[in-house]
């Protein structure tokens, strides 16, 4: 089984949004973003922090996609995953870890702020925010996940 682990250093679940893009679950229209917020982000995005894995789905090739947020400790994370897989003799090519880089300092701070707001208050702004960062995340997913997706 192959697994793609996406993580970001933002408290806002950027990695989950990138995972949804990778899985073609959302496009740049408002409806799909609202649907994503309804289905995944609103209730669970707080549980993405501090290394808690969230299963997002499976692509056509059968690769599982999971996402989490981790504010710091990237070196530790890389070592931890590598040695854990070695420990259980799991082929490291079966687990690909991708960092979703934060899209600029202002947008990063906006995401941090939004992640602090209660879901009921920040919901509309979260949708707007996802709309703003969507093109950047598409580029990141294209580059880092080595996966061709349409721009629609």
């Amino acid at each position: 089984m192959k697994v793609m682990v996406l993580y970001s250093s933002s408290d806002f679940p950027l990695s989950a949004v990138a995972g949804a893009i990778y899985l073609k679950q959302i496009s740049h229209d408002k409806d799909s973003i609202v649907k994503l917020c309804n289905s995944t982000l609103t209730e669970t995005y707080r549980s993405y922090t501090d290394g808690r894995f969230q299963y997002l789905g499976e692509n056509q090739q059968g690769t599982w996609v999971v996402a989490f947020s981790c504010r710091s400790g990237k070196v530790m994370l890389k070592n931890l995953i590598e040695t854990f897989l070695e420990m259980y003799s799991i082929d490291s090519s079966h687990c690909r870890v991708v960092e979703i880089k934060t899209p600029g300092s202002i947008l990063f701070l906006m995401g941090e702020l939004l992640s602090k707001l209660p879901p009921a208050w920040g919901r509309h702004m979260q949708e707007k925010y996802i709309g703003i960062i969507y093109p950047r995340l598409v580029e990141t997913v294209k580059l880092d996940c080595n996966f061709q997706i349409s721009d629609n």
Partner: protein
Amino acid sequence: MKIIYHCYGGAHSSVTAANIHLGNLPRDRVPRYEELTGQYLFDRHKVKDTGKMIFMGRDHFGNDIYVVGRRSRPNLLCNVISGLSEIFLIDKKSYMLVDVSPCVNFTMKVGGVLSRRMGLITPGRPIVTWGTRRNYKKLLAEVEKVFSWIDQKIPPGKDRQKNFLLRSPEVEYN
């Protein structure tokens, strides 16, 4: 079972606990300075090795003993290991995370920072070793707890279980 001792740096308290577990350090007395500094991997861990689970040996129950430094992020360690084991269908009872950071005293912290962070081994190592000798009984008690759990195959008393679970939330019992 894989028993993973973890602490802030993975250089002193976890290494000492692992060596006590493996029988490389005495259980009936506090070891001498040379015994502590001469143990495998004591005060050797580097910052870039954070998160690496290092195999220390196999105990007489057949358990593999590991040490890992996880900075001040025990939750990250527990959550990532838990997440990976869920994905790869690894039994959570096949490993045990033991947090030995409560056994670390101020002297060990000072010595550890001097030796590992600042590279001042000459003053840092004696200080951290002195601190380890002072808290050796606490480390021994922590290892004894682990031994009692392995040996008896039953959960510890409610208060001990609660404390243990607070520090290592991913551990499950039979």
